[in-house]
């Protein structure tokens, strides 16, 4: 009996009618508009005001950038659209654009800057390819050894024995990185494995494996020494450097030197040794609490006094040193933030297995801390990229310096707004890309640590 009643119950189960579609004004485009733009009186007012403001800006911008545009002109006077009014002189920007990027670098030598940039890109691309191994070595060699190659390519002139060796080493490293990455991509094994197999050392004891690798390195080094022996670039003194190129050189050197210096300073700040800690704290606090411009003025006025007699330091070098000191102090705080994010157990565990201080830092703490730090390092680089514009105040022709130079050029005198707008666009693209990348890293690097 009970079974039957239950079956009855099941058959009489409540079956809801199909639900009505939502009211048409809550879905689709209309619903979206209602919910996001006209949700109440205040919201509607704000929307209308915003639309008016946007429209006003668009109309004005169109008028300035397009309606009044003058695309062909040989000097500023030809940019007049009426006898009293100047048009928007894009011709001037077109005329000066190469200068904005390369400064006063000779036109025929610009390819050197471009090829150094391409080499750097090729050197660094493997770091982002998932199949490539030994990424840390590639990145480190790019940061530490590439500057010698780039320095020679930018500067040119005679090489002394030191530069001869360093340029060959850098070229050798570059060739190795490229071969290694290609091998990784196509065969899945790194260069050392491939050399060992090729020379038939793979069936010998592992102790001997390093010999063919060393041989290979020597061969590559000699090869690149031979390759560069005939190459001689025209000398381009660094007062010709300028534009975006100079901005990137200064901020690139700044960030590359700031990372190791910042790591050392941050470790020093957390050290148990009083003298070291006090010195590090003093350095960090001193350079963080004063504006960059005062450090730059200090560099240009005081560095020449600091040097022993007979030594000279040019303006660019002192500016670079100043930027490095400044960046190192800021990077130290970024690194400290990363170190503080590592739980104390990690330090204690590293100590407990008997690692020395440098081993525990190098193998346990730093690899984890770096992961936390990367987004901040990227945004720090972005900040430095922006702050580098200050070198124009001490008279270097970086991107902003070139733009000020345009408005003082006799035939383009008074041309401010268009170059400034161009520079703003260049900076915006660079910094926006970097900030989005750092946000992306922040989201993705947290994998495994996220809550």
């Amino acid at each position, binding site marked *: 009996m009970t079974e039957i009643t239950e079956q009855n119950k099941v058959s009489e189960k409540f079956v809801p009618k199909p639900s009505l579609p939502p009211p048409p004004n809550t879905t689709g485009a209309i619903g979206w508009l209602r919910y996001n733009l006209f949700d109440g009186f205040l919201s509607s007012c704000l929307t209308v005001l915003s639309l008016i403001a946007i429209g006003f800006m668009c109309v004005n911008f169109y008028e300035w950038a397009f309606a009044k545009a003058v695309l062909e002109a040989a000097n500023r006077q030809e940019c007049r659209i009426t006898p009293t009014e100047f048009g928007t002189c894009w011709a001037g920007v077109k005329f000066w654009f190469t200068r904005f990027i390369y400064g006063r670098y000779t036109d025929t030598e610009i390819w050197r800057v471009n090829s150094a940039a391409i080499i750097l890109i090729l050197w660094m691309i493997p770091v982002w390819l998932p199949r490539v191994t030994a990424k840390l070595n590639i990145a480190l060699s790019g940061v530490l050894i590439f500057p010698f190659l780039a320095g020679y390519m930018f500067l040119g002139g005679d090489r002394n024995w030191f530069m001869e060796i360093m340029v060959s080493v850098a070229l050798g490293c570059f060739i190795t990185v490229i071969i290694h990455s290609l091998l990784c991509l196509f065969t899945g094994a790194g260069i050392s494995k491939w050399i060992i197999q090729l020379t038939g050392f793979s069936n010998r004891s592992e102790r001997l494996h390093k010999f063919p690798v060393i041989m290979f390195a020597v061969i590559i080094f000699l090869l690149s020494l031979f390759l560069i022996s005939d190459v001689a670039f025209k000398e381009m003194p660094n007062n010709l450097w300028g534009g975006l190129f100079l901005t990137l050189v200064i901020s690139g050197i700044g960030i590359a030197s700031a990372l190791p210096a910042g790591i050392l300073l941050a470790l020093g700040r957390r050290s148990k040794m009083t003298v070291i800690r006090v010195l590090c704290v003093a350095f960090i606090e*001193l350079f963080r*609490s004063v504006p960059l411009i005062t450090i730059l*003025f200090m560099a240009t006025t005081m560095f020449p006094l600091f040097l022993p007699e007979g030594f000279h330091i040019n303006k660019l070098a002192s500016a670079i040193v100043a930027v490095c000191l400044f960046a190192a102090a800021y990077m130290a705080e970024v690194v400290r933030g990363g170190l503080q994010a590592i739980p104390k157990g990690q330090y204690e565990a590293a100590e407990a297995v008997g690692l020395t201080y440098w081993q525990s830092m190098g193998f346990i703490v730093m690899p984890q801390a770096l992961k936390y730090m990367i987004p901040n390092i990227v945004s720090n680089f972005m900040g430095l990229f922006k702050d580098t514009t*200050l070198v124009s105040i001490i008279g270097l022709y970086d991107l902003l310096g070139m733009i000020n130079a345009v408005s003082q050029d006799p035939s383009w005198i008074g041309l*401010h*707004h268009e170059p400034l707008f161009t520079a703003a666009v260049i900076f915006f693209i660079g*910094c926006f890309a970097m900030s989005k990348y750092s946000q992306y890293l922040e989201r993705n690097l947290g994998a495994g640590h996220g809550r």
Partner: protein
Amino acid sequence: MSGNTPSSSRGANAVINDERYRSIFYQVVVFGLFIWAVLSLIENTQINMATRKMAVGFDFLKNTAGFAVAWTPLDYKPSDSYLMVYWVGIINTLILAGISIVLATFLGFIVGILRLSKNWLVAQIASWYVEVLRNTPLLLQIIFWYLGAFANLPRPKQSIEILGFESLVLNNRGLYIPKPQPEDLFWLTALALLVAVLIAIVLNKRATRKQQQTGKYISTLVPTLLLVFGLPLVVFVLTGMPLDWEIPALKGFNYRGGGFVLPAMLAVMVALVVYHSAYAAEMVRAGILSVSKGQTEAASSLGLKQSFVMRLVIIPQAMRAIVPPMISLWMNVVKNSSLAIAIGFPDLVSVFMQTSLNQSGHAVEIVALVMAFYMTVSLTISACLNVYNKKIQLTER
């Protein structure tokens, strides 16, 4: 085996491997290197300064500066000393930074709240405002504001009258405003304001205590406003309105009288305010988002009104996340105000580190003095920050 090693070498090993001795050794080495570096720098500097016949010491501060400063609220004449120039620079920097800090924080709060608006368009505009301003260099923005807005102002004869006031004019010499000239009994009004503020504070404290004891909410908004504005007004009228306005007037080719602000100062101020407001907006947004949604829901379920939810529950908690980065932002405003040099506003770096340094050649002393000022400001601000952090930590637990 190890038992056979002579005890003297074991003792040496023990010393080498002992962390304490090692650390002392390292510290001595580092300290020695540091002292050596400092001494050699001093020696080099002395040699270099001797060969360039540069004088050393702070005596030059008493010398006559001999140059004019374009804008200062102080009574400065070119015949004053370099010490006075230092002081002028400090005051100008502090005024510029102070006004910019207040306005940037205020604007930052507005933009930060707009970024969280439910209105999609408004939120988008606010977020692009932040993106554009944060991703272009401040120096470029300062030059942009100066050349784009404040360098093309009309001549004094064609001055722009702001809001139709004849006494509030903007031209290529600057912004002219009426200057208040207090008369004899004006101090009474000031005193009345002070008394009113004190009474208002006491009133508010008592109201809060009463609410904590009895749960009864007493609105103090109206009495506070009445007190703070009413009492000084009454005293002001009773003492016979002892305040005169010095009104700028066009005389010859320029405006005379009243207060005035350089176009360069306006440009730097606008740039500083706008640039830092973008950073402040991000902090405000992050601070509000850091308060979990459960707090809003809990407050609403207690039956609090919407405005109380914001004022009593969300904002006090958000403040905890907003204030520390906001204070470092203020420090950045002080530091970044030094960029005024690019368009010629006479701040500390401009009048002291550039003009005075070029004239007197006392590089080391001047750099030290300027850095000392900025370090003092930043150490003061971080000391305040530490006090605040300690205070909110106490209320937390």
